[in-house]
């Protein structure tokens, strides 16, 4: 290819690259500037950082974020993998079941949030009604207003919303597993459980790693469910860091402190993802 052709390739990509640079890189750099200045633009050193990191709320929010994202991923992966393997089996109506299973993922996040909020309604919610009619609970539970149940309830909704995505990716991964592997295993007398353990899961490793990474990022991004269902309450028990950043910036109008918190959040996420990618590469 000629030299002209080479530059042509970059030329094609340039508009998209410039847009992304303006929308991502510039803001990131700007966050750094904001985090060490005050409202008037004067340099204040680490003052914003110490104000944010010193606040009790920050530690609470970090902890909540960790719990929310961690438990969500664990259950999303388990349920999603099980559903993916199930949908890879032969049964009547498989196509229809595959489409139906996607519904939670397709329904807009805010719709899922409002619907579940109504289902979790203390007095008239269907969840309390069903649990009480099978005597699983004795009295109505205020799922979203009780400090002890709010997090599990939110995690359950998040798992319900995202497990279909895991299942679809697992299904795609399973379909690229060569049939000969199963045949060989069957000749050796492998049971279905052996097939899962020694063929499916090892073959799915790359899919599992990239899917869990995506879930982590989406989990950390996800304000929608929590903001719409509890706004971080009761008593900050469901307040996660993204909501804290939002509040600091748009409710208390302390943009500089919010920027400092954003930066810390960004660095910690980067660190976690870096370690995760490194670990998964090393185990290859």
């Amino acid at each position, binding site marked *: *290819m000629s030299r002209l052709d080479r*530059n*042509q390739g970059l030329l*094609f*990509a*340039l*508009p*998209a*690259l410039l847009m*992304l*640079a303006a*929308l*991502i890189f510039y803001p990131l750099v700007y*966050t750094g500037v904001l985090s060490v200045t005050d409202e008037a633009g004067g340099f204040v050193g680490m003052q914003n950082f110490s104000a944010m990191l010193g606040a009790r709320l920050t530690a609470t929010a970090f902890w909540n974020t960790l719990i929310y994202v961690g438990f969500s991923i664990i259950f999303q992966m388990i349920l999603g993998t099980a559903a993916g393997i*199930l949908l*890879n089996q032969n*049964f009547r109506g498989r196509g229809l*079941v595959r*489409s*139906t*299973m*996607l*519904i*939670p993922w*397709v*329904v807009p*996040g*805010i719709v*899922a*949030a*409002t*619907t*579940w909020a*109504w*289902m979790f*309604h203390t007095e008239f919610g*269907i969840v309390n*009604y069903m649990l009480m*009619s099978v005597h699983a609970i004795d009295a109505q539970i205020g799922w979203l207003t009780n400090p002890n149940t709010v997090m599990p309830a939110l995690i359950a909704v998040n798992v319900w919303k995202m497990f279909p995505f895991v299942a679809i*990716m697992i299904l*795609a991964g*399973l379909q690229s597993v060569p*049939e000969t592997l*199963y045949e060989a295993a069957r000749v050796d007398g492998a049971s279905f459980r052996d097939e899962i353990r020694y063929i499916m899961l090892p073959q799915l490793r790359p899919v599992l790693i*990239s899917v869990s990474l995506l879930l982590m990022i989406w989990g950390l*991004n996800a304000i929608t469910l929590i*903001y*719409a269902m509890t*706004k971080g309450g009761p008593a900050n028990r469901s307040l996660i*860091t*993204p909501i804290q*950043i*939002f509040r600091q*910036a748009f409710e208390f109008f302390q943009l500089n402190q*919010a*920027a400092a918190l*954003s*930066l810390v*959040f960004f660095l910690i996420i980067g660190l976690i*993802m870096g370690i995760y990618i490194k670990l998964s590469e090393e185990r290859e």
Partner: protein
Amino acid sequence: MAASARTKPIIYLPVVALVLVSLFPFLWMLISSIKPLRELYTVPPTWIPESPTFANYAKVIFDSNIPRYFLNSIIVSFGATALALILAIFASYGFARFGFRGKRYYQGFVLVGQLLPTAAIIVPLYIVLNWLGLINTYLGLILVYLILTLPLSVWMLIGYFKAIPVELEEAAIIDGSSRLGVLFRITVPLSLPGIVAVVVYAFVTTWNEFIFALCFATDSSVKTLPIGLSEFSTEFNTDWGAVMAASVLMTLPVALVFLGMQRLFVGGLTSGATKG
């Protein structure tokens, strides 16, 4: 295909459970949306509405801001999808067909956008948009939505473009066609499934987006549906019938787009992931 020899009836147990878990909240939303208030607030709840009514829908459509938000959502989603598609077609073609210095890094850079925690950039984005006078405008939202739609769109299209035989393009160039002519007369039409997948992905993502809309579109003239719905449901005296009706109305466009093109979309998502 796997394990076809040993499919047993017992498999229907988890299948039924899966369908119930996936479908139930959606069904409950539909059922609740056609119940009158009196019936919503009864214990025990009725499974089949005793006096079904469309009053909730009428209320949402004629007595609320929801139709306006619906229109705003349509404008923003279409705008953001079109812009992402155009930029992604050019970028993917450049990446798929040419070798140039630093290509790997540019490709990686595009993907990084997908990995970014959005909460970490809302503050500077707000200041930049404010400076440009784009807060509370359609254009402002459309631009920031590129962060969400562009990276994966580029990634998916690269896979599709690479799958088209390069000989087809070379033949057209020998016949005197320009690069752009080749791109829009041969490559794009041949990757129609990929284009559809990108459109569906971008539309659904922007239609459902919440946090950017919450921060950058606070005026009711540009507010999108998700924000409208969340306000609707957190009002002091929530009218759950109307909220459920609004939820149904908001889900309809996405569900239609998705179910109509589901096979194409899921295929695009996975092929992009493996070929990219």
